[in-house]
């Protein structure tokens, strides 16, 4: 179990417990957190679960998957800190992770 905080573009913050083995995207969808669309359901095929991860966390979470950057190219306003939340694995090591949501996904 890890506490994950999702911060919407307007500053609204949601902190939820997400079970180990899920992804940060699944944690958002299961807890009805607005701002993560996840249209393709975690197939890394749509870039609608796009989040920004600040430096202090970026190196602690698992590395980008092969092809993830190709999808991020297609996200709304990608930045250096962009990740697809369906590719971030939840484990006790990332307890306290904060991710920031873009203004919109599409």
């Amino acid at each position, binding site marked *: 179990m890890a506490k994950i905080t999702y911060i919407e573009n307007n500053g609204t913050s949601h902190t939820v417990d997400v079970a180990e083995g899920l992804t940060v995207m699944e944690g958002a969808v299961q807890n009805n957190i607005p701002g993560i*669309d996840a*249209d*393709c*359901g975690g*197939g890394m*095929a*749509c*870039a*609608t679960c796009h989040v920004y991860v600040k430096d202090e966390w970026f190196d602690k979470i698992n590395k980008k998957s092969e*092809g993830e*950057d*190709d999808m991020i*190219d*297609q996200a*709304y*306003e*990608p930045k*250096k800190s962009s990740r697809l939340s369906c590719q971030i694995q939840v484990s006790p090591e990332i307890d306290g992770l904060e991710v920031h949501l873009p203004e919109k996904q*599409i």
Partner: protein
Amino acid sequence: MIKTDALIIGAGPTGLFTAHQLKLIGLDCEIVDNLDKIGGQCIELYPDKPIYDIPAIPECTGEELTNNLLEQLKPFNIKFHLGERVDELKKDNEKWKVKTSKGTEFETPNVIIAGGVGSFEPRKFSPKECEQFENKTILYSIKDKKIFDGKTVSIFGGGDSALDWALELSKTSKVNLIHRRDEFRAAQATVDKVKELSNAGKINLITNSQLKMVSGNGKLEEIEIENDNKETKKLKTDFALGFFGLIMQLGPIANWGLNLNKKTVEVDTEKFETNQKGIYAVGDICNYPGKLKLILSGFHEGALAARACFKLARPNEKYRFEFTTSSKTIKNRLGVKSD
């Protein structure tokens, strides 16, 4: 006005198999899809990715699955309307009147929505100012490349579409190619060619940069791009082209008076009918307790929706359940010999 027993919206795996089921039980149908090709998400999103959970097919790619479904549909003459989006759906007596973005009109008692996560639309530039130039000097697809002759064209993106067009247009136009990273996802041969032309000064290649602002009086005149170090640069340009892939949008389906749950349509599990009589939803777009977004679920849903269509298309006939192994009628429809 095309009259048909059932109209299917969406040419993905679920739509294709639903067509097969309709034809088997003796109903005609036509299929509309906003994409210009058959296969839906399987072709657009993962043509080369292996799928492992299609019953009796241990492994196949999205493209192979689509080809197999088309092969299965071969005995039937199915009319596809590709590159058309269903825009209007209106009740007229007991029938539905349907109109597409290209003006094709249908009259049918049954409409089956097999629309996946909605229709695929190009992902657009983020600055709001781009809207005023959209479809004129800011484009997301190219219909007539002649309009670029002798002009300056700024192409954004790092995939095959962006790079292929950069190569093509560099023959007759001044091309800026702008990409967010310095790695490209296009085919390696294409990337090599672009780099060669860039070294030769024939393509102005700018990496690690994104569109920040556009300006112009009536038509696009200048774009401002920003690199990773937040440095901005202004470029004169006549056109800006964005190739950022496709997104899925529910689109006009949201206006048809259906019970929606987020981006899905609520259905019953007997007929997969929505709250509107004669409108069904099958595959990823439908929602009911326990719904699984698997291709195999779409096949089951389509088979049941097809039987429900029979009642409305043939109100005076009784539907009789038959197996393909034994039914003479079905074998005739399939064009195979009966024993």
